[in-house]
């Protein structure tokens, strides 16, 4: 059994929280005491049935305002798969929270209110899906109960959406007409829309292929920690501990250590009490090298025959996440996996109007702005392009005055 991580997006009131509540409810994932709390809550639907949205709106302010402010994570499983859901806020001022929820997801669900069709928010959220390189997208046309479960309404919306999908180069898009409130096509196929021949949402989520997600063949492991017991019996022990981002390392593979460029051979791979022959993407292991090379936290061990980019000047998409605007005159910190170095945003190439998708020249970058910049780093980073290797192609910006995470970077090209 494996895990599928997905997030939900859509305008306020399109029914994201209700949809998640429905998935949990119809898969029997809500326990009796939680259900009791729901029944006792004074937030109810108009017809007196329980409001499933309260399951995810966890903060007092959210319940009071009836909106989602921050990402809530929910967990459920079926016989086929485990699911981690990020319920993300739709409001434009919480875009950064949505990006947080989306950054670890491998599938996105975008909700569209059948009464409203494609709106500005749909465009913005779809843009974020393409920007963040989410491989699978499900577009749910929700509230079908309010348009008499009409196939014409549904078709006219998805025809519009297909134009947008093409414009954004969104590859795998699946469309499903649903009613989160009534449960149509969420877990069971709806009898009220016999014109729809596809699967229910849950069925789709259970079988969507995750194997082809993030499967770069390039072996990369950032070193997080050097294990050196320095005891008598383990005097010369030196293990490089880290998580394999992508690809596979095997015993006797030639590897290069970046940024130094030193090379060596893998002598041993350790995982606690085991010594496997290979370490694969996703695994946290300890690697031993044959030669005595100088390696510390922040260095990256890579396959010697498939080197990443190594550059101090990188073109990247930037999503700004702080109330204080970007200042191109000051130094920030950039964190790329376990490596932290100083940097400057040396140039703003353009900003994207995320409602119209038009690019504009710009000289300022404010909260939730997205666009293309040039980052100049103090130390060279060993990176891959985001679209090839999400884990090694992304970084965050930290403002050293406040220590806050102020930006998300997706690497698009090495400059020079």
């Amino acid at each position, binding site marked *: 059994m494996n895990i599928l991580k997905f997030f939900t997006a859509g305008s306020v009131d399109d029914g994201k929280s209700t949809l998640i509540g429905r998935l949990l409810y119809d898969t029997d994932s809500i326990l009796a005491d939680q259900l009791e709390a729901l029944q006792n809550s004074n937030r109810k639907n108009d017809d007196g049935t329980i409001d499933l949205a309260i399951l995810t709106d966890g903060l007092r302010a959210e319940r009071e305002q009836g909106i989602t402010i921050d990402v809530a994570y929910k967990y459920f499983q079926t016989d086929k798969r485990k699911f981690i859901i990020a319920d993300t806020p739709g409001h434009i001022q919480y875009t950064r929270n949505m990006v947080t929820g989306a950054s670890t997801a491998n599938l996105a669900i975008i909700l569209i209110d059948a009464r409203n069709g494609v709106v500005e928010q749909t465009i913005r959220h779809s843009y974020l899906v393409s920007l963040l390189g989410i491989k699978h997208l499900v577009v749910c046309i929700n509230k079908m109960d309010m348009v008499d479960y009409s196939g014409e309404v549904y078709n006219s919306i998805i025809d519009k959406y297909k134009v947008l999908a093409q414009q954004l180069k969104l590859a795998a898009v699946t469309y499903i007409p649903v009613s989160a409130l009534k449960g149509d096509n969420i877990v069971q196929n709806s009898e009220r829309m016999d014109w729809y021949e596809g699967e229910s949402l849950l069925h789709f989520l259970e079988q969507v292929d995750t194997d082809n997600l993030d499967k770069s063949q390039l072996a990369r492991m950032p070193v997080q920690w050097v294990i050196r017991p320095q005891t008598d019996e383990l005097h010369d022990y030196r293990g490089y501990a880290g998580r394999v981002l992508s690809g596979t390392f095997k015993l006797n593979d030639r590897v290069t250590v970046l940024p130094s460029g030193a090379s060596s051979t893998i002598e041993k791979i350790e995982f606690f009490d085991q010594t496997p022959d290979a370490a694969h993407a996703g695994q946290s292991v300890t690697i031993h090298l044959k030669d005595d090379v100088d390696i510390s936290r922040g260095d990256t061990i890579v396959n010697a025959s498939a080197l990443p980019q190594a550059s101090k000047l990188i073109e990247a998409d930037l999503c700004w996440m702080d109330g204080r605007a970007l200042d191109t005159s000051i130094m920030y910190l950039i964190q790329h996996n*376990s490596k932290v170095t100083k940097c400057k945003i040396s140039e703003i190439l353009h900003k994207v109007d995320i409602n119209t998708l038009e690019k504009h020249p710009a000289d300022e970058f404010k909260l939730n702005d997205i666009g293309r910049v040039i980052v100049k780093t103090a130390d060279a980073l060993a990176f891959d392009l985001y679209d090839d290797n999400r884990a090694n192609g992304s970084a*965050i910006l930290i403002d050293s005055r406040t220590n806050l995470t102020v930006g998300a970077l997706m690497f698009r090209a090495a400059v020079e």
Partner: protein
Amino acid sequence: MSTYNFDYLDELEAEAIHILREVAGQFEKPALLFSGGKDSITLVRLAEKAFRPGKFPFPLVHIDTGHNFQETIDYRDKMIKRIGEKLIVGSVQESIDQGKVVEQKGKNASRNALQTVTLLDTIAKYEFDACIGGARRDEEKARAKERIFSVRDEFGQWDPKRQRPELWNIYNGKIHKGENVRIFPISNWTELDVWNYIRRENIELPSIYFAHEREVITRNGQLMAASPFLNMDDEDVVFRKQVRFRTVGDMSCTAAVESEATLIDDIISEISESKISERGARMDDKVSEAAMEDRKKGGYF
């Protein structure tokens, strides 16, 4: 592409190890909060996997309410001996003796809330900049919102509206002096995942997790272990029952469930079929819909 076996427990484990190693790499004085419960016991196993054959780059810290199940303390001491790591104990009794907190009164009195003060004092005394905890997002609604690296101000407070964005698997542990980060490596695990992991790894647990007979009373519809720490009066009828505990906390606020589950397999099937969440067995969370959010804002784990 080569295929390899990497199921969901492997994935959760690898993620947690990655987080623990980030703590080691990013902080000067981290600590692992050890409660004696199954979640923190799981953290200890994960730390072994992250750092052996080296030592843990942090001590274990136990906030001792003085109202413990003896079985937990015995387990703790035996475990510390086995792993050979340092243990620091922060005592709630000491905080009471020093007049920093006042014992609650009445039937529902518990020391659970008092722990926060002792925890913050212990953090200040040892200048810990990061505290690793075993909280999971599936436990409770406010937890479901929390980041893996969760920054607390110098008063230990969590501000849910000012959480840092947390992107990909990149964790920003930068803080100002006096601030502190709570770190939750098993955020993405469910209760069942923890049990399945304990079974797979063959991890020993304190005996109170398994069905045993003990003296209990009924309080607010729940079974509580009869003990000197519970304010009992003539109305409380003590009787014997076959029970086990789903979480291990202060004796005065941890309810027992009736159970026949004496083996880990029994527990796993019991939980899979159970219709009550684990937090439902904690009286302290029942008080209000926002009980946990409020306690976390105040500095609770």
